[in-house]
C-alpha cells in the first residue's frame, strides 16, 4: 500500500465533578472517602488563605515577589493525595496545596519568597525538591530522581509539575524523552493555566491539546479538568499504577486557570479580558468542591465559617514562624558553597567587610547558620 497508516492515537479528557456540579458516579464513587474530601477541602481553604495573606505581606513590604496560586489548588493537591509519602514531588511555584499536603512546611515556602535560601531546606523526611524558579528545568531532575529510585528498587516514583509555558523549553522535551526511552517511573503534570505571564497558551502550543505533547514520546497521555479534584485523583491513580508497576511515564495535562496576576510584580489587566476571567471564576475548584460537599450534607455554612477562622489563625501562626526566623548572618552565603569551604573562599568570607585583598582578619560570622527546624504541616 503506498499510503498506509502506521500509528493512531487518541487523547481523552477526564472530568468527574464538572463546573455545574454534575458528578459522574461511575468513575467518582468510592474514589475518595468522604472524610478525606472534607480534609482536602479544608486544606484548600488553608492554602487559599495563605495565598491571600502572602499577597498582603508582599504589598506591605514584608515579602518579595510572590506568585499567587489561587484557582489552581486542585491539580497539585489531587496529585499529592494520590501519591505516597515516599514519592517525589518536583514542582515549580504554583503547587503550594500539593506541597503542603505532601509535608513541606508552609513557613519554608514563605521563607523562600522572603528572600532566604533556608526556605529550600526541605526536611530530610519529606520527598520534595524546592520551588523551581527557572522555567522548565525541574522536569529533568524528576526524571533523574525516578531513575535513582528505579535503580535502588525502592518502589518510589516521581511526579513533576510545570506550566503550559514550560512545555516550550527544550529541557521539557529532553526530560520526557529520557523518561519514555529509559522507562522511568515519572509522571509529568502540566498545569495549563492559559497563560505564561502575558503570553497566551496558544503561543506555547497551537495544537488542540497540550496532552498530545506526550504522543511524541509514545507516552500514555491524557487531559483532565484540573479544577476537578476527583478527576485529578482518578488520572493520577492510573498514572501511578503505570509508573510503579510498569516503570512507564505518563503525561497529564491539567486544564486550569490562574485567577490572579502572574506574580505580585504583574498586572494581568494589561493583557487579559475580564470576561475570560469571569468565566473561569465560575469554575473555581474550591467553590465546586464545597458545592459537592454541601449537596451531600458533608459541609455546612457553620463549618465553613469555623474552617475559615481556623485557616486564618493557622496561617497567622505560619507567618509568625516564617518571620520569626532570624535573618541569616552576614556572609552566610559562603557557607554551603561546597562541603568544605576552599581556602580562597574562606579568605573572601573572612575579609569581606575589611579588605579587598584579603590580608586582614574578619569580623564576619564563620559558622554556617543552621537550617530552621520547622513544625510539620500536617
Amino acid at each position, binding site marked *: 500500500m503506498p499510503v498506509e497508516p502506521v500509528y493512531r492515537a487518541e487523547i481523552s479528557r477526564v472530568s468527574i465533578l464538572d463546573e455545574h456540579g454534575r458528578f459522574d458516579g461511575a468513575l467518582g464513587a468510592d474514589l475518595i472517602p468522604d472524610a478525606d474530601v472534607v480534609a482536602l477541602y479544608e486544606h484548600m481553604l488553608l492554602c487559599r488563605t495563605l495565598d491571600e495573606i502572602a499577597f498582603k505581606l508582599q504589598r506591605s513590604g514584608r515579602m518579595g515577589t510572590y506568585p499567587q496560586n489561587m484557582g489552581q489548588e486542585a491539580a497539585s493537591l489531587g496529585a499529592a493525595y494520590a501519591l505516597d509519602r515516599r514519592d517525589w514531588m518536583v514542582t515549580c511555584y504554583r503547587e503550594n496545596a500539593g506541597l503542603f499536603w505532601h509535608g513541606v512546611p508552609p513557613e519554608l515556602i514563605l521563607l523562600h519568597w522572603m528572600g532566604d535560601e533556608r526556605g529550600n531546606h526541605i526536611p530530610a523526611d519529606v520527598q520534595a525538591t524546592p520551588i523551581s524558579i527557572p522555567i522548565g528545568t525541574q522536569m529533568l531532575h524528576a526524571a533523574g530522581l525516578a531513575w535513582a529510585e528505579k535503580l535502588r528498587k525502592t518502589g518510589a516514583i516521581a511526579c513533576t509539575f510545570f506550566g503550559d509555558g514550560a512545555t*516550550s523549553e527544550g529541557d521539557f522535551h529532553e526530560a520526557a524523552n529520557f523518561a519514555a526511552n529509559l522507562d522511568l517511573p515519572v509522571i509529568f503534570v502540566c498545569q495549563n493555566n492559559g497563560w505564561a505571564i502575558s503570553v497566551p497558551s496558544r503561543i506555547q502550543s497551537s495544537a488542540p491539546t497540550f496532552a498530545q505533547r506526550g504522543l511524541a514520546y509514545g507516552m500514555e497521555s491524557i487531559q483532565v479538568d484540573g479544577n476537578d479534584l476527583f478527576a485529578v485523583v482518578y488520572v493520577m491513580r492510573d498514572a501511578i499504577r503505570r509508573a510503579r508497576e510498569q516503570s512507564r511515564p505518563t503525561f497529564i495535562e491539567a486544564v486550569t486557570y490562574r485567577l490572579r496576576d502572574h506574580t505580585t510584580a504583574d498586572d494581568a489587566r494589561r493583557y487579559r479580558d475580564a470576561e475570560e476571567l469571569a468565566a473561569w471564576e465560575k469554575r473555581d475548584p474550591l467553590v465546586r468542591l464545597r458545592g459537592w460537599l454541601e449537596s451531600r450534607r458533608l459541609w455546612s455554612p457553620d463549618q465553613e465559617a469555623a474552617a475559615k477562622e481556623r485557616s486564618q489563625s493557622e496561617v497567622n501562626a505560619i507567618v509568625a514562624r516564617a518571620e520569626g526566623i532570624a535573618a541569616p548572618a552576614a*556572609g552566610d552565603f559562603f557557607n554551603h558553597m561546597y562541603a568544605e569551604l576552599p581556602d*580562597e573562599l574562606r579568605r573572601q568570607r573572612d575579609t569581606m567587610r575589611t579588605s579587598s585583598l584579603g590580608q586582614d582578619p574578619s569580623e564576619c560570622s564563620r559558622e554556617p547558620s543552621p537550617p530552621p527546624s520547622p513544625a510539620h504541616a500536617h
Partner: protein
Amino acid sequence: MANLTLVQAINLALIQEMELDDRVVLLGEDIGRNGGVFRVTEGLWQRFGAERVVDTPLAESGIIGTSIGLAMGGMRPVPEIQFEGFLGPAYDQLCSHAARFRTRTRGRFPMPITVRVPVGGGIHAPELHSDSPESIYVHTPGIKVVMPASPYDAKGLLISAIRDPDPVIFFEPKRIYRAFREDVPEDEYTVPIGKARVVTEGDDLTIVSWGAPVVDCMNAIEAGGRSAELIDLRTLYPFDMETIAASVRRTGRVVIVHEAPRTCGLGAEIATRIMEECFLSLEAPIQRVTGFDTIMPYYKLELDYLPGADRVGRAIEEVLAY
C-alpha cells in the same frame, strides 16, 4: 532634549531604530502587548504591530536560535532575554553559533543580532534574577559585550549595537533602570562601541567599573574626597585599554569594581592587562572590589554580596595607603 530614565532611553532608541530600518524586529517573552516585564518595550507592539514585536514561546534557545536564522535571512533581530539568569538555556546558540557564524563561514553569514538582557542584583528579585555573567561572554570570542551605566549612553550604545554587523550582548543594569534621569537628545546619535567614558577626572588613583556599580563608585568618591579618575568601561569586549592605560600611567594606583564573581571575572583581565602594559607605573597592587566566588544570595543578603560604596571606599584607602 528630554529628561529620561535608562528604561525610557532604551525604549526611545528601539522606537527610532525600528522607524529607520524595517529589518529591525524584536522578539522575546512578554515583550508584546505587555511591553516587557520591565516595560522596556512599552508601546512598541501597539506601534509596530505583532509582526515586528513578537511574543515567542517560552524558550530562550529558541529565541536566540531563530534570531540567527533571521539574521541569515537579512533581518536585524533584537531578541530580549527576560533576565540574565535565562541566558543559560541560550548559551549554546549564543556562544557556539551566533558568535561563530561569521568566522566559520568566512564572512558569508554575519550575525547582526543585539541581545538585550537585564543584568545584576539589588532589586530583591528571586533566584537567577540577579546575576552578573558578563565575564562569560567577554571570554567568548565573536561576541561584543556592552553595558551602559547612564541613560545617555544607553540610547547611544543601543543604537550602535543594533547597527553593528556583529552580535552584541547589550546588558541593561536593572538596578538603575529607573534610579535617575539624564538629559537625552531626542535625535538619533551613537555612542561608539569600544570606547570608555571618563566619568570623573582625578590624579590619585584610577577606578574602573561598569554598569550599576559605577554609581556606587561615584558615591564612594564623593564620600571619600580623593582625587579619583573614574572610568566607566561601557564596552566590555572589546574594551578600551587605551583609556585605562593612559590613566594608570598617570595615577599608578587602581581599583576595579564589578558585581560578578571575582575569580576569572573581567576585573582579572583588566588587572593583568594593566600589569602587562603599565608594569613600571604601578605603585601598588591593583585592588578588586567584586562579587564573591559564591552564588548570588537570595535577597536578604544581596547587599552583603554587592560591592557597595563602602567597600569601594575602603579599597580606595587601601590602595592609597600601600
